[in-house]
């Protein structure tokens, strides 16, 4: 088996790595938006619950939560498919981190603009969606990219629940060929390449939506 064969075999896992990363990033993004949005619109009791969520989910290791969801829940009769288990562990944890990033970014939205929008007769929800979120996301961009990167780096945990992503392919290869060094070296390079492509894609997005005067620092 040549090095090229190894790489070709590994590439078969790329789909799954990308799938897991995108699923968990999207979950994180949606959860982050919901948490920060509810927090903005809500009353103190709910706010305490939301803050507890972000605190707790940032304190639990991904692997522990993943096992709890994937191996723990079936014991109480809830069978969770692997990808959903990733979304409910890595995705929710990413959501808690992204909510924190958003919370900081929301503070950068100018209060006078919100008052202006209120004076025009916009509802609280309209203001959140048309004024606060678009600005918040622009301010939060660098932090969001960090969190998406973290998701990519934790995506190998998907192998523990049987998703045949890159690391799983590598483990299979390593056990049959006994060439672990080349294989894992190639895996490292492969992740790095995926990371750079993701980064380039996100930067392209950022440039497309960039507004003069609201550039992330």
């Amino acid at each position, binding site marked *: 088996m040549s090095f090229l064969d190894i790489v070709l075999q590994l590439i078969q896992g790329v789909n799954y790595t990308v799938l897991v990363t995108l699923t968990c990033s999207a979950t994180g993004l949606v959860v982050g938006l919901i948490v920060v949005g509810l927090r903005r619109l809500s009353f103190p009791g709910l706010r305490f619950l939301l803050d507890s969520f972000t605190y707790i989910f940032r304190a*639990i290791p991904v*692997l522990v939560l993943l096992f709890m969801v994937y191996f*723990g829940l079936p*014991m109480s009769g809830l069978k969770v498919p692997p990808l959903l288990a990733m979304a409910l562990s890595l995705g929710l944890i990413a959501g808690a981190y992204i909510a924190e990033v958003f919370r900081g970014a929301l503070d950068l939205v100018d209060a006078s603009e919100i008052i202006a929008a209120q004076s025009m007769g916009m509802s609280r929800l309209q203001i959140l969606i048309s004024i606060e979120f678009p600005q918040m996301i622009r301010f939060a961009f660098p932090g969001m990219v960090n969190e998406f990167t973290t998701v990519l780096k934790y995506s190998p945990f998907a192998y523990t629940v049987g998703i045949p992503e890159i690391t799983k392919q590598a483990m299979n290869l390593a056990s049959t060929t006994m060439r*672990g060094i080349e294989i894992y*070296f190639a895996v490292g390079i492969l992740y790095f390449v995926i990371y750079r492509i993701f980064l380039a894609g996100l930067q392209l997005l950022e440039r497309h939506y960039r507004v003069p005067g609201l550039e992330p620092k």
Partner: protein
Amino acid sequence: MSEWARFISDLLEQMPLILTGLGKTLQLASLISFTGFLMGVVVFYLTLSQRGIIRRLINGYISFFIGMPLIVLLFLMYYGLPQWGIKLTPFTVAVIGFTLNVGAYNAAYLTSAFNGLDRSELEAAKAQGFNHRQIFSLITLPQVLRLSIPALTNQIINNLKDSSIAFLIQYTEFFARVQELASTNFQFFKAYFFAALVYLCLVSIIVLIARALEKKILIPGIFR
């Protein structure tokens, strides 16, 4: 006997093993926090090198380790190196792997703090005749470290949480012991829930210490 009662009796029975596991987790987390910190400072020092080639190499190192999963590096050393006749213990693999990884992160935090620094002080120091190394250790580093305390603290929390990865290379730390507990009585959910609670408590202790320090030295931004 209720399920919880059974779980708790199993838990108590295996408590000695779990506690040694917890000890190993804390040992690994503190050691890598320390070595990762030193590595971060060294790498940060090298990013300020006057030689372009070194700067480029170091930036490549930081970028590579931030873009690559740690688990891959651990597997490379643990499952790959024996092929060259190098057999390392799980603990050694974990310490080396985490140090390289955490060092890259810490260096990135220090660099971004450095970029926000007022450069005129550095020029003043240069004008006074301090050499490169003196400026670094007397002026740059103290200021940058101060500014980076929140990020470095959060990294310590991450180290504690990420140390659970080491069980994937057969290091019998806390989470590995919890796995054993779960497989003796098949109470997976309760076992993992217990593990989550323990991590939550440990993280909270670090947060409380950091907050107490924060009050003393007034540095905002530590994990809330």
